[in-house]
C-alpha cells in the first residue's frame, strides 16, 4: 500500500520535474519564438488556406531552425555573451529548483498533516459516539428504573419496594448501566407531609448543602452528624439508594444547590437532566448526576411543565462517574496510547468544565466532537489530541532534498559543460593560432633553407673554382690529393644543397616541370651507364643492371626528362646502395599493358628473374595505385601516355618497421644506414613529390633479405601527334639513330632465363635485328642447322657458355659445317666488364665478349667491330659521360677555334672521339668566315683568349651577322632556299677556357655565347653543356 503510494508520488515528482524542464526549455526558446515566429504566426492565424499554412509552416520551420543555428553561432561565437547567458540560466535553474523543492516539501507535509487530522477526527468521533451510546444505554436504563419505581412504588399501596429490594434490584441490574456508579430515588415530600413522612421512615430529612460545602472523606463520613433539613415548602429526601451510594438516604435533594436545580429542571421537562460535573461525595471524583422525574401517571409528550410538576411524585438520580467511565471506555479501544481525550462540559462557553483528562496544553492538533447525552440544556464535547508531537515529514524532506540534489547535479553538469566548452573553445583558438604559427614557421624554415642553400651555393662555386685553379698551380702529390678531396667534398655538398633546394622548391610549389621532347630509352641508357661503374665497384659479385622498355612505349615523349632522370637515378641509386648480389632491373610499360596483364599473369616463379635471385613481386607494389582502381580514367584517345616504371632489386630489402616512413624526408631505416651507405634520406621524398607532379603515384613492396621493388607511374604526352604512325616508324628511326647497318639481320639468343632473354631481345631489337630466343643450346643449334633463315649472329649468355659449351668444340664444329653464306658470328654476354673487348679464341673460331649492362650503343659498337660493318664508330668503354656524349655528338659538325695548335688538336681529338665531325680554325676571323650562313655547323667551341680577335669579339660579330641575315630573310630580302631553308640562324657557341673566373657565365651570355666548357675538356661538364642544346 505504502509502496504504491510512494510510487505514485514518484510519478508525480517526475511529472513535476518534466514540467519544469519544459518550462525552462520554453523560456529558452521563447527568444527565438518571439524574434522569428510571431509575425508569421499571426498572418497564418488570420486565415489562409490550409495548404498555404503548411507551406508557411514549413517555411517557418526552416526559418526557425536557421534561426536556431544563427543564434547558436551568435551565442557560441561571442564568448562573453554566451558566458553571461549561461550563468544567468544556471542561476535561475538553481533558484527555480530550490523553490520547487521547498514547495514539494511544503506540499508533502501538508498532505501528512491532513491525513493526521483525518485520523484524529475519525478516532475522536468514534470515541465520542461510543461514549454517547453507552451513556444513552445507561440513561435509558435509569429511565426504565424510574418507570419501575412509579409502577411498583407509587402504583401500589402498600409499596412493593423497600430500600432493600431497591438496593438488590439496582445492584443486580448494574451491568445494564455501565456508566453509572450508583442510583438513588428521592421522593417528593411536601412540608405538610414531613411529619408523617419522618415518622414513617424513622429518620429526619437532612440537609445536604453543608455536606457540599465541606466535603468529607469516606472514612469519617457520618450521616447522623448531618443537620436536619430546614423547613421548606417541599422536600425530596432520598429513600432508596443503591448500596454503593446508601449514604445519601435521607438527604434532601432539594437542599443541595446543584441537585435542586436538577430536580426542578427534570420534573419540568420530563427528561433526564444532567448536573454540571462536580466532585462526588466520598470518592471525590468528578461525576455528574442524571435526574429523572417520576410521575404519578403516564403523561403525554405534549404535557405542560405545570402538569408535569403536579404529577411528579419523586426523582430518580443516577451518578455517573465520568472519569472512570471514560477510562474504562478508552481501555476497550485500540490505540489508546496515541491520543489524549478530554471530555468537557461546555454549557457555559466561557468556562468549560473539564470532566475527564489532563489539562496538559498541547498546541498541536485537536479535534472536537460534540457529545449528546440527551440533556438539551447541557452541552458536552470531547476534545482529542495526539499524545506525540507530529513526526518529521521524512518522506517529503528526503524527496525534496533528492530533487534538489539532482537539480544541483544537473546544474553542475551544465556549468561544467559550459566551462568545458569555453575551455575547449579557448584551446581550439589557441591551437589554431599555434597551427598558424607552426605553418608560418614551416614556411619560414623552407624559405630560410632555400635562401641559405642558395647563399651557400654561390660561395661554393667560388670555392670550387678556386680549388680548380689551385689544382693548376705547382702542387706536390700530397697537396694535389688534398685539393682533390676538397673538390670532391665540395661537389658532394653542392649536390646535397641542390637536393635540399629541390625539396624546398617542391614544398613551396615553385618547382615546375619542363615540357620538352625527349627519348626515354636514351635516358635510361644514360642512367644505366652512370650506374654500371658503380655496380662493378660493389665487390666480389657483380650486380647485373638491366633495362627493359616495352615496345608499346613511344620513342619520343614530352615531359621533363631531367626530373624523370632524377627519379630513376634516385631509385636506382638506392637499389645499388643496398644490393650486393643479383640484379637491378628497370622495366617500363604503358599502364594499359600492365592493367591487361594484371589478371592474366599468373604467379611467376621466384626463379624467373634476371639473375635467378628471388625478388619482391612488383605487382604488389602498385596494388594501391588509384590509376588501377579507376580504369575509366584512362582515355585511350588522348595524347597522354601513362608509364609505369618498376625498379626491382635483389637487395637486402627494407625492414618492415621502417617501410611506413620510406617517403618521409630525412628518414632512413636507422642512423647506421647513413654511416654505411651515406645519403641524406631525402631522395625518395623528392622522388615522391616529383612523381606527384607528373600526375603519377609511387609505391613499393619490400621483403627483407629478398629485395625491394619500387614502382611509379607518370603521365607524359606523346612526342608526335599521331602516335600510331609513329610506332610503325619506330624501329626504322631507332636504327637510324644508333646504326642502320644491322637492320634486317637475324640473331639467335641462347638464354634459359626468360626475363633475361626478354631484356636481351629488347636491346638487340633496338638495332633493328630480328631476334629469336631459344632456351636450350641444342635447340639453338638445330635452328641454325635448319638454315631456313640465315642467322647472322649467335648471342650466348655466359651462364650457358660456362655450363655447356665451354671446352666443347661441338658447337663451333656445327657452325663451321654450315655450308651456305657466312657462318654466324658468336657473341658471349658477360656479366663483368673486366673481360670487355677481349676476344676469346677457341680454335679457329673467334668469339666476342659483350659486357653487360646491356646498352644498344655498346652492342652496336661490339657488333660493328666484329661484323666489320661500317667502321665509323669507335668502340667505347663503359665510361659514364662518354657514351652519352657519343649519343649527343655523333655526326655533329663542330667548329673548334683556338690559336694554340696543341690545344686545337687535343680538343679536336676529344670531340672526334665522341663521333663528331670536327673542323679546326686558329683565328677568330677564320671562324667568322666559316660560320657565315649558310653553313653546316651544329656548334662551335671557341677559345676566348686569342690574339688579334678574342672569342668574345668573334662571337659578337657572328651573332650580329646572324641577326642581320635572319632579319633580311624575314623581310624577304634574301630567299630562304639559299640558306638551307633555315630562317632563323643561330649556331651554338661555347667558350673554351682554362680560366674559370674570367669566363663567368654572365659574360659569356652577354656576348651571345651559349655556355662555356673548361679546357682541357672535362667529360662531365662537356656533357652538361652540350646536352643543353643537342637533344
Amino acid at each position: 500500500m505504502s509502496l504504491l503510494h510512494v510510487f505514485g508520488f514518484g510519478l508525480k515528482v517526475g511529472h513535476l520535474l518534466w514540467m519544469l524542464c519544459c518550462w525552462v526549455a520554453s523560456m529558452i526558446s521563447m527568444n527565438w519564438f518571439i524574434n522569428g515566429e510571431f509575425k508569421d504566426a499571426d498572418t497564418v492565424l488570420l486565415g489562409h488556406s490550409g495548404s498555404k499554412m503548411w507551406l508557411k509552416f514549413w517555411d517557418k520551420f526552416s526559418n526557425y531552425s536557421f534561426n536556431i543555428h544563427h543564434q547558436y553561432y551568435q551565442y557560441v561565437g561571442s564568448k562573453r555573451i554566451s558566458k553571461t547567458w549561461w550563468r544567468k540560466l544556471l542561476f535561475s535553474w538553481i533558484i527555480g529548483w530550490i523553490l520547487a523543492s521547498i514547495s514539494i516539501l511544503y506540499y508533502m507535509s501538508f498532505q501528512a498533516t491532513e491525513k493526521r487530522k483525518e485520523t484524529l477526527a475519525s478516532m475522536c468521533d468514534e470515541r465520542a459516539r461510543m461514549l454517547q451510546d453507552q451513556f444513552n444505554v445507561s440513561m435509558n436504563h435509569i429511565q426504565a428504573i424510574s418507570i419501575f419505581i412509579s409502577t411498583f412504588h407509587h402504583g401500589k399501596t402498600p409499596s412493593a419496594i423497600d430500600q432493600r429490594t431497591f438496593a438488590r434490584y439496582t445492584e443486580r441490574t448494574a451491568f445494564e448501566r455501565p456508566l453509572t456508579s450508583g442510583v438513588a430515588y428521592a421522593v417528593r415530600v411536601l412540608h405538610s407531609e414531613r411529619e408523617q413522612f419522618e415518622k414513617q421512615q424513622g429518620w429526619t430529612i437532612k440537609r445536604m448543602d453543608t455536606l457540599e460545602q465541606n466535603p468529607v472523606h469516606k472514612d469519617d463520613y457520618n450521616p447522623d452528624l448531618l443537620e436536619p433539613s430546614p423547613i421548606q415548602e417541599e422536600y425530596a429526601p432520598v429513600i432508596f439508594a443503591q448500596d454503593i451510594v446508601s449514604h445519601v438516604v435521607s438527604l434532601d435533594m432539594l437542599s443541595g444547590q446543584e441537585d435542586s436545580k436538577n430536580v426542578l429542571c427534570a420534573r419540568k421537562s420530563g427528561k433526564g437532566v444532567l448536573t454540571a460535573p462536580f466532585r462526588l461525595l466520598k470518592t471525590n471524583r468528578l461525576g455528574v448526576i442524571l435526574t429523572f422525574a417520576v410521575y404519578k401517571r403516564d403523561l403525554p409528550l405534549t404535557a405542560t411543565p405545570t402538569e408535569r410538576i403536579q404529577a411528579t411524585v419523586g426523582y430518580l438520580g443516577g451518578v455517573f462517574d465520568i472519569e472512570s467511565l471514560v477510562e474504562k471506555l478508552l481501555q476497550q479501544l485500540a490505540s489508546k496510547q496515541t491520543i489524549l481525550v478530554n471530555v468537557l462540559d461546555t454549557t457555559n462557553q466561557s468556562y468549560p468544565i473539564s470532566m475527564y483528562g489532563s489539562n496538559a496544553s498541547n498546541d498541536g492538533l485537536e479535534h472536537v466532537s460534540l457529545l449528546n447525552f440527551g440533556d438539551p440544556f447541557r452541552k458536552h464535547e470531547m476534545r482529542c489530541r495526539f499524545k506525540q508531537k507530529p513526526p518529521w515529514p521524512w518522506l517529503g524532506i528526503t524527496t525534496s532534498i533528492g530533487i534538489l540534489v539532482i537539480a544541483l547535479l544537473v546544474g553542475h553538469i551544465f556549468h561544467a559543460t559550459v566551462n568545458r566548452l569555453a575551455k575547449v573553445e579557448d584551446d581550439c583558438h589557441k591551437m589554431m593560432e599555434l597551427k598558424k604559427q607552426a605553418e608560418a614557421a614551416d614556411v619560414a624554415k623552407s624559405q630560410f633553407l632555400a635562401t641559405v642553400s642558395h647563399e651557400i651555393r654561390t660561395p661554393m662555386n667560388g670555392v670550387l673554382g678556386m680549388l680548380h685553379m689551385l689544382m693548376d698551380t705547382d702542387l706536390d702529390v700530397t697537396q694535389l690529393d688534398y685539393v682533390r678531396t676538397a673538390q670532391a667534398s665540395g661537389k658532394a655538398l653542392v649536390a646535397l644543397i641542390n637536393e635540399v633546394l629541390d625539396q624546398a622548391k617542391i614544398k613551396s610549389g615553385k618547382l615546375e616541370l619542363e615540357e620538352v621532347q625527349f627519348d626515354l630509352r636514351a635516358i635510361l641508357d644514360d642512367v644505366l651507364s652512370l650506374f654500371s661503374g658503380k655496380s662493378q665497384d660493389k665487390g666480389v659479385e657483380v650486380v647485373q643492371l638491366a633495362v627493359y622498355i616495352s615496345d608499346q612505349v613511344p620513342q619520343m615523349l614530352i615531359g621533363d626528362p631531367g626530373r624523370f632522370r632524377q627519379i630513376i637515378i634516385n631509385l636506382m641509386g638506392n637499389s645499388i646502395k643496398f644490393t650486393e648480389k643479383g640484379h637491378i632491373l628497370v622495366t617500363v610499360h604503358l599502364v594499359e599493358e600492365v592493367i591487361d596483364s594484371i589478371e592474366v599473369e599468373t604467379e611467376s616463379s621466384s626463379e624467373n628473374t634476371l639473375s635467378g635471385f628471388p625478388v619482391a613481386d612488383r605487382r604488389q607494389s602498385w596494388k594501391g595505385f588509384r590509376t588501377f582502381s579507376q580504369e575509366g580514367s584512362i582515355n585511350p584517345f588522348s595524347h597522354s601516355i601513362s608509364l609505369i616504371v618498376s625498379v626491382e632489386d635483389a637487395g637486402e630489402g627494407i625492414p618492415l618497421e621502417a617501410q611506413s616512413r620510406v617517403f618521409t624526408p630525412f628518414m632512413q631505416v636507422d642512423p647506421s644506414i647513413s654511416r654505411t651507405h651515406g645519403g641524406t634520406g631525402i631522395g625518395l621524398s623528392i622522388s615522391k613529390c616529383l612523381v606527384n607532379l607528373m600526375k603519377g603515384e609511387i609505391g613499393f613492396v619490400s621483403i627483407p633479405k629478398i629485395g625491394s621493388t619500387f614502382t611509379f607511374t607518370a603521365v607524359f604526352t606523346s612526342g608526335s601527334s599521331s602516335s600510331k604512325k609513329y610506332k610503325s616508324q619506330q624501329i626504322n628511326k631507332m636504327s637510324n639513330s644508333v646504326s642502320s647497318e644491322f637492320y634486317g639481320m637475324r640473331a639467335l639468343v641462347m638464354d634459359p632465363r626468360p626475363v633475361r632473354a626478354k631484356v636481351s631481345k629488347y636491346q638487340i631489337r633496338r638495332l633493328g635485328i630480328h631476334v629469336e630466343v631459344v632456351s636450350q643450346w641444342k635447340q639453338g643449334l638445330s635452328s641454325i642447322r635448319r638454315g631456313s633463315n640465315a642467322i647472322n649472329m649467335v648471342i650466348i649468355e655466359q651462364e650457358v657458355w660456362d655450363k655447356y659449351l665451354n671446352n666443347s668444340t661441338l658447337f663451333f664444329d656445327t657452325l663451321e659445317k654450315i655450308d651456305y653464306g657466312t657462318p654466324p658470328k658468336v657473341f658471349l654476354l658477360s656479366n663483368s666488364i673486366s673481360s670487355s673487348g677481349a676476344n676469346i679464341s677457341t680454335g679457329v673460331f673467334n668469339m666476342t665478349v659483350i659486357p653487360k649492362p646491356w646498352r644498344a650503343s655498346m652492342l652496336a659498337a661490339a657488333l660493328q667491330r666484329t661484323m666489320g660493318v661500317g667502321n665509323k664508330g669507335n668502340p667505347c668503354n663503359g665510361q659514364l659521360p662518354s657514351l652519352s656524349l657519343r649519343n649527343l655528338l655523333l655526326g655533329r659538325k663542330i667548329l673548334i677555334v683556338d690559336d694554340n695548335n696543341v690545344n686545337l688538336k687535343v680538343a679536336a681529338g676529344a670531340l672526334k672521339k665522341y663521333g663528331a665531325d670536327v673542323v679546326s680554325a686558329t683565328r677568330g676571323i677564320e671562324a667568322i668566315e666559316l660560320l657565315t650562313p649558310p653553313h653546316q655547323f651544329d656548334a662551335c667551341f671557341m677559345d676566348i683568349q686569342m690574339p688579334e680577335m678574342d672569342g668574345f669579339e668573334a662571337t659578337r660579330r657572328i651573332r650580329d651577322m646572324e641577326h642581320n641575315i635572319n632579319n633580311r630573310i624575314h623581310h624577304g630580302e634574301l630567299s630562304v632556299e639559299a640558306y638551307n631553308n633555315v630562317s632563323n640562324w643561330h649556331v651554338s657557341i661555347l667558350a673554351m677556357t682554362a680560366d674559370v673566373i674570367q669566363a663567368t657565365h654572365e659574360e659569356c651570355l652577354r656576348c651571345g655565347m651559349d655556355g662555356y666548357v673548361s679546357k682541357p675538356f672535362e667529360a662531365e661538364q662537356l656533357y652538361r653543356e652540350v646536352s643543353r642544346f643537342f637533344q
Partner: protein
Amino acid sequence: MDLVQLQRQFVDYRTSLYHEGFLDEQFTQLQELQDENNPDFVVEVVSLFFEDSERLLNELARALEQQSIDYKRIDAHVHQLKGSSSSIGAQRVQKVCIAFRNYCEEQNVEGCLKCLQQVWHEYSLVKTKLESLFQLEQQILTAGGSIPM
C-alpha cells in the same frame, strides 16, 4: 729484348713520369683519345707541342733580348705555352709558365729570364722523357706486342 720485359719497362717508365710530375692525367686522357682511327694521335699532338713550344721559346728569348721589352707579347706567348703544355699534360712546364706570367705582370726582367731558363730546362726534360717513352712504345710495337694501358 723480351716483349714482356719491354712492356714492364714501359709501364714503369710511364709511372715514374707521372710520379715525378712531368706528366699528369691530361696525358692519360690524351692517350685515351688515341684509337684505331687515329693510331698516332699522341705522337702527333706531342710533336706538334714540341714544334710549337720551340718556336715560342725562341720567340720569348728574342723578345727578352730586346731593349724595350714588350711584356704583352711575352705574356701572350707564355699563355700559349701554358695552354699547350696543359693540353698534353706537361704539368711542370705549365707550372713554370704560371710563375713566368706572374713575373711578366710585374715586368720583372730578371724573373722572366730566370723563368725562361727554367721553362727551357723543363721543356727539354719533358721532351727527352717523352721521346724515350715513344721509343719504348715503338720498340714494343715492332716486337709485335700491344701497348699496355
